[in-house]
């Protein structure tokens, strides 16, 4: 085996070790998306989404649970599910706030 071959092999070995290390390190147990989603769900609950936006709130909870399950095996998909859960929760919260504003309006202008 020529010295060139050995150098190439050595370089390949280094590259693959670095790549493998990268694979392990790159997708960190990304809890930030999950934490954001959890916070958004709590805010939606506090805004009264249980009553006025149950479909959106349940969608958020389902996707959040899915994200938790996926985290050890597929962190990328888990991250996506968490972001989706957050968007569901934000919609649930806004729907609850909208319902409250409409209620306040109806108290002043009772619709026939």
């Amino acid at each position: 085996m020529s010295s060139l071959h050995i150098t190439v092999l050595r370089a390949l070995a280094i590259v693959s070790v670095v790549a493998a290390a990268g694979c392990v390190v790159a997708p960190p147990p990304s809890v930030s998306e999950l934490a954001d989603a959890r916070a958004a769900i709590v805010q939606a609950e506090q805004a009264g989404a249980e009553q006025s936006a149950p479909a959106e709130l349940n969608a958020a909870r389902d996707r959040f649970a899915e994200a938790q399950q996926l985290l050890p095996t597929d962190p990328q998909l888990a991250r996506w599910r968490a972001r989706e859960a957050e968007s569901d929760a934000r919609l649930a919260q806004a729907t609850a706030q909208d319902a409250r504003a409409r209620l306040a309006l109806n108290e002043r202008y009772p619709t026939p």
Partner: protein
Amino acid sequence: MIPNSKPIVLSTALAVAMVLAACVTAPPDNSLAEARAAVNSAAANPDVVRYDALDLDMAQKQLANAESAAERDAPDMADHEAYLAIRTAKLAQVRADEMVAQQRVAVVEGERARVQLDARAQVDHLNGEPPARTVMVLLTDDYFEPGMAQLTPAAGKIIDDLAEFLIAHPERRVRIEGHTDNTGTAESNLSLPLHRAESVRMALVARGVDPVRSEAVAYGPDNPLTASENPADSHFIRGVEILLSDSRGQIASR
């Protein structure tokens, strides 16, 4: 039966293949189409454009991400971005809807405040903490000479205080709205309130308020001062409404 079985098996296989193919390709196509529809419908809603352009902008970006992921043949990512776009577009619609409701409530509250506080009390109120919101000062018919645009001495004193406030707060703007009731001819119903609004504006300018900061408009009986949604309790008030902006120069629209 047996001679026919081959074509049946083939067609069944074909059908199964088509269903399977549909299973694989349909979700991204469907969610993309749904996302396009949701974003388009939000963009077509003038309330969204007015009150929540930020979320609309975000939804459009997410839709663009979904489209480009689909082009790059990354269906999972396309699905994900399409899902976000749909939710954000709905969020924009719901938030705009909430803003419209809040604005209407503010109008009703403002109407009640107008009834409770006369112009004098409103202006005296300005001497305290400068208000964060739009302030309405109503000069009713009584503050003008009968049938004329000329201000009474009592109105002159209110204008003095308003001018002083505006000079001390150069970031505030003022809109002066003339209103009429539904008696009299259509022409006088528009020209008198306009002349009265102009007369208030000129009185402010004469006291040193920069004319650029003020505008005068008039409304006929089709846009009564009560701004009540409910025609039953909508009563017409003749007079001039002076709207002082908040500290950012914004005037809440009626």
